């Protein structure tokens, strides 16, 4: 009995000390869908470089969801058990993420969405970019290049993901403005460069010169199409090609004049989400990231907005060197 009591006292003391520590510095967990691809690497790196993290004003832990909705849900349970003060959520699945958000909400932990959407009205706020906009911008670029007539192909992301659905909506909005443009092919290459390369090789065989433009819903797939064009002995300059995200290889391809890309500012999404989360945790918090100055179109509004739209930046010959510099 005394032994049991003693154990309980120690446990209570330990618990007390951890919660005391937690009071000193708030703990924020970032549950991201997966860290295998470059984009999320950049997102996570930007989070770690947020001034509040660097200055020790907040303790941030990143959880790798390994592309599995169930893993993400279990990580939410872990964060709830450990009493995190706020959670930043980049869900793998638009629907499955809602359960996790509900659990955190029930435990009184604010959840801020970032980068990908979740179908839940319990999010404190969402800091991301509007994919319909980028889909429209990239398709508009391709259509302008080909003079609003001729044949184009669309290489889609995995069918059903929020980015694929919304970028396609944007693609179609632009295509509706050019009734003389024919969509010759529209298939998924699952964000993969190698899959897009195979698709494009086969499409070039089928349609030959009729393909004037390539709308890749991300950069990787646009880069695959470029390789297929080269492998077929054709001139990349004869095609209008666009992608989205601004990954490093795409920046290099823009610089070489092979394609257009639209930068999705993952760094701003990450740092913005952390500022919004901290505003919910710390009374009278003022945002510390420089992104609010960088994007005057996205006003801070006391961190109380339900949605923050990080603007897209078209990659151009003028800004590409500066963007590449930032990747060093």
């Amino acid at each position, binding site marked *: 009995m005394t032994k049991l009591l003693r154990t309980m006292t120690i446990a209570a003391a330990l618990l007390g000390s951890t919660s005391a520590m937690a009071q000193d510095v708030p703990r924020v967990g970032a549950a991201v869908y997966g860290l295998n691809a470059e984009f999320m690497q950049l997102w996570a790196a930007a989070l770690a470089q947020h001034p509040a993290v660097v200055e020790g004003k907040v303790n941030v832990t990143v959880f790798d969801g390994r592309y599995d909705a169930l893993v993400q849900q279990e990580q939410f349970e872990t964060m709830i058990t450990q009493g995190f003060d706020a959670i930043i959520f980049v869900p793998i699945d638009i629907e499955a993420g809602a359960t996790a958000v509900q659990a955190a909400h029930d435990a009184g932990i604010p959840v801020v969405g970032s980068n990908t959407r979740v179908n839940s009205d319990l999010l404190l706020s969402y800091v991301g970019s509007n994919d319909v906009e980028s889909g429209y911008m990239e398709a508009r670029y391709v259509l302008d290049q080909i003079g609003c007539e001729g044949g184009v192909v669309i290489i889609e992301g995995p069918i059903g993901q929020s980015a694929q659905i919304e970028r396609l909506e944007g693609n179609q909005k632009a295509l509706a403005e050019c009734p003389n443009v024919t969509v010759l092919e529209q298939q998924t290459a699952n964000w993969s460069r190698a899959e897009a390369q195979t698709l494009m*090789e086969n499409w070039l065989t089928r349609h030959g010169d009729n393909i004037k433009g390539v709308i890749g819903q991300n950069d990787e797939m646009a880069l695959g199409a470029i390789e297929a064009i080269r492998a077929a002995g054709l001139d990349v300059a004869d095609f209008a090609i666009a992608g989205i995200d601004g990954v490093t290889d795409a920046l290099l391809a823009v610089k070489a004049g092979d394609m257009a890309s639209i930068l999705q500012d993952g760094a701003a999404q990450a740092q913005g989400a952390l500022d919004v989360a901290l505003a919910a945790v710390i009374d009278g918090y003022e945002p510390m990231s420089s992104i609010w100055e960088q994007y005057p179109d996205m006003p801070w509004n006391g961190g109380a907005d339900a949605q923050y739209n990080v603007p897209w930046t078209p990659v151009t010959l003028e800004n590409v060197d500066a963007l590449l510099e930032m990747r*060093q």
Partner: protein
Amino acid sequence: MNTTAADRDIKTMAVQYGQKYGILIALLLVCVALSVVNEFFLTQRNIINVLRQASINGILAIGMTFVILTRGIDLSVGSVVALAGVVSASMATTSSTAAVAGAPYAFYIAFAVGILVGMAAGWINGILVAYFNVPAFVTTLGMLSAARGLTLLYSGGRPVPSLTPEYRFIGTGDLFGVPMPIALFALVFVLAYFVLSSSRFGRHVYAAGGNPHAARVSGINVKRVRMVVYVISGALAGLAGMVLAARTGSALPQAGVAYELDAIAAVVIGGTSLSGGVGRVTGTLIGALLISVVNNGLDLMGVESYYQQVIKGMLIVAAVMLDQARHKHA
């Protein structure tokens, strides 16, 4: 019904031919059908596309044939493709962020490193399977995970871009008009064909897979044979990883996911028995071509890619049913 002896002979002959050449006949039928329904299928450019698209899977499948002939399986090839690709590319890139110190090195150094990385992964698989008696499924499943993790650690999850022109040659160049991936695939096929059909090691592979006990009694070092086949599979995965990186222009740490499944499919469709000892690398070649032809044909006809997966699944099962029928008759 009465059947004469001559009828029976013809029937037996037909069955035998059907079993021996069934998969080749299936490939030819699919090709004939596709060239009838699609005007582009039989063009020179498309044939080159089909062969090029088959080459990476084909190289992996040839390595897999050696392993499956010894009753093994190598689930790690997709991850080894990525690991060897990323490591060798980091020695042949002009990008300052992704390169190892001193890069870019001469092509042959980067190439040798890629092959060695593949062989090292295969060697670990082989040692564990042959000398520690860990089931091949478990060993290579472990390597599938470990090699992917090492790839991500090594690359920091980022692609290795800006490969030197010499390096890119193995993916985009050509040799006397034959694109390099196809030339390498052909070279690997010819080597594997002679090793399996006419070398002592080849006979040992069949013996070790067909009846390991008898092979051991007759003086064959079965453990060593079982180890070497994984080294071969690893080396070819390394080669495939470099061809892939050279083709796509960057070594991607996410490359090669699920490639092991297509490689196993090509081997099985090609008639190599999963219970070991029976099979030919010619069958694997035809299996890899069949998968590629079907994908290409469906793309040319504008069929949604999801159907391609369904059709590939049916092909695999049909091939194994053919295999079972053959065993019943034998």
